[in-house]
């Protein structure tokens, strides 16, 4: 029985060199959420790591504030008065390509998650995220990478796992490559990007590249199964 308990590969790895930040100065952020208490809390948690340049509490105000301030990252609540986060994305994603959106929500409903990602958000985190994790996620999105929560990774695996086929070419929009699948599995297991890189013997940068590729597939794929999965999961 003892042989079943063995040490995993993680410990044997050497530390990855820390990745140098690609951006100098604090990231400029706009907070969009209809709960003032929550905005105050997020502002406090982000602290000095980012520069909160604006706040909005509904879709219309959000569009105005974002257009006026041109932030690097918008922390966008999914459920907002005036059409929700989707309305903000629909109004701005095409016109302000430099502004990146990170969806932040209490909802775990698959249709909400998938809808904002397909609407153009570069990531999705739940509101239970800790301060340092949120700061990290904001930086990551500001750098143009994608941020997947374990649950979002699970959704994507579920959505793309209807067939066991694996993409031979990374350019295939309708399937995940073997490597992308492995990365998503580890994220779903609660691994940070750094830990994923360590487990797969790849750099954090490569992990980010894989996750961004998955995000692109999720946004662009017209795959029948993706639609069907989302429809089948539409509860209530």
């Amino acid at each position, binding site marked *: 029985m003892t042989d079943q308990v063995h040490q995993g590969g993680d410990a044997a790895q050497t530390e990855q060199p820390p990745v140098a930040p690609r951006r100098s100065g604090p990231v400029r952020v706009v907070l969009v959420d209809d709960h003032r208490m929550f905005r105050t809390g997020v502002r406090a948690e982000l602290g000095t790591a980012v520069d909160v340049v604006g706040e909005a509490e509904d879709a219309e105000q959000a569009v105005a504030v974002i257009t006026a301030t041109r932030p690097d990252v918008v922390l966008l609540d999914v459920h907002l008065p005036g059409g929700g986060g989707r309305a903000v994305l629909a109004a701005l994603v095409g016109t302000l390509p430099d502004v990146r959106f990170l969806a932040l929500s209490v909802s775990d409903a698959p249709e909400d998650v998938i809808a904002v990602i397909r609407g153009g958000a570069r990531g999705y985190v739940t509101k239970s995220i800790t301060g340092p994790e949120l700061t990290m996620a904001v930086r990551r999105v500001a750098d143009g990478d994608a941020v997947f929560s374990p649950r979002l990774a699970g959704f994507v695996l579920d959505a793309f796992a209807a067939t066991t086929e694996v993409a031979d070419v990374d350019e295939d929009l309708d399937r995940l490559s073997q490597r992308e699948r492995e990365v998503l599995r580890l994220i779903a297991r609660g691994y940070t990007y750094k830990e994923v890189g360590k487990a797969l013997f790849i750099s954090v940068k490569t992990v980010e590249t894989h996750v961004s590729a998955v995000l692109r597939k999720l946004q662009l794929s017209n795959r029948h199964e993706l639609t069907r999965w989302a429809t089948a999961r539409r*509860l209530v």
Partner: protein
Amino acid sequence: MTTTGNATAGVPVASGEPPARRLYRNSEGRVLAGVARGLADHLGVDPVAVRVAFVVMAAAGGAGVAAYGMFWVFAPQNPFGQARPADRERDLTMALALGSLAVGGLLLLSALGLGLRPGLAVPLVAVGVGVVILWRQADDDSRMRWRQATGTSRLSGAARAAAGIGLVGIGAIAILFGAVRGGGTSGGIMAAVVVVAGLALVSGPWWVRMARDLTAERNARIREQERAEVAAHVHDSVLHTLALIQRHVADPREVTRLARAQERELRGWLYRPRPGTGGDGTSTPSVSTALERVAAEVEDAHGVAVEVVVVGDRPLDDRLVPLRDAAREALVNAAKYAPGTAISLYAEVEPGQVTVFVRDRGPGFDPDAVPADRLGLRQSVVGRMTRHGGSAVVRSVIGEGTEVQLEMPLDSRQTPRDTRSSQ
């Protein structure tokens, strides 16, 4: 409930569509019943164009009159429109409109081959004008009810209604006399038909209104029931939990436990299929529901937060019960030895096997040192899995946390080669 209401068909990515537009008759800027104005608003064209179209159609065999009548009956009034205050000029235009309607009605009659016999046509036109007055008055009445207008125009309303009824009655009597004078057995039948038709025309507006009121009342009752259900649920669970949390402010663990339990319960209520709507509530639980339940039990018992992510699903058969129990043990271990840290449970259901990972971010331990207090993990997790034909792997790094990997093959009872340990 409000979040998904607008996506009833097609892809969920479609942005929220505006609610379906309804055709309303618009009493604002109406001449007769607001049909032309409402149609114009609905189609986005000039009301004059619509009116001209109606007139042309009326001239062409009276079809316009028939169409106008249909719209009047079937399109509801716009309850949000503002009615113009009635004035003399309006009444004059209305008389004009009534006149043209009468001419149109005569044309319709001649088109139907009834000819323009004055003995029949004049009473018919009288009936028609009377009906129009009655229906228009009914519109005014219902609008008045929405606005709770004062009774100043009550009198003129009653006068108009009386005029309408009178016109219909006189017309009917005239037709009746014509028919009886025609003689024969058909005269009696004709009389009965005329009386019934007259009554139907006079009481028509009230029948229509009653039917609409019934529908509106039923909708209101359904909404009221929904609201009561939500209120009851919020009261029973959420308010209750908030009260408990306030009582336990000094005990952070208890507060966490209460908040997590309430969150879980509320999520379940909001996002799960309702019983009786095709949910799988009573049948054998699936792997995902079983694991979620196990995680909930551990959260409740130990005051920790467990994030559960399940990919794929299948019914929880006998083979998978040990897997569930082992997962529970792994969670309990994580809760005990890594309190206050995030615990993740990830399960993947594949055609050939089910894999579960339980990960914590606690202090970790050295598996080679085999601490005596970790016998529980050995016995209840690893032992249970191997006894039932599965396998378990425990990885732990001091300072980083522990991960337990459980695999249960679905095809054969043999212990599979661990294909994933190479990671």
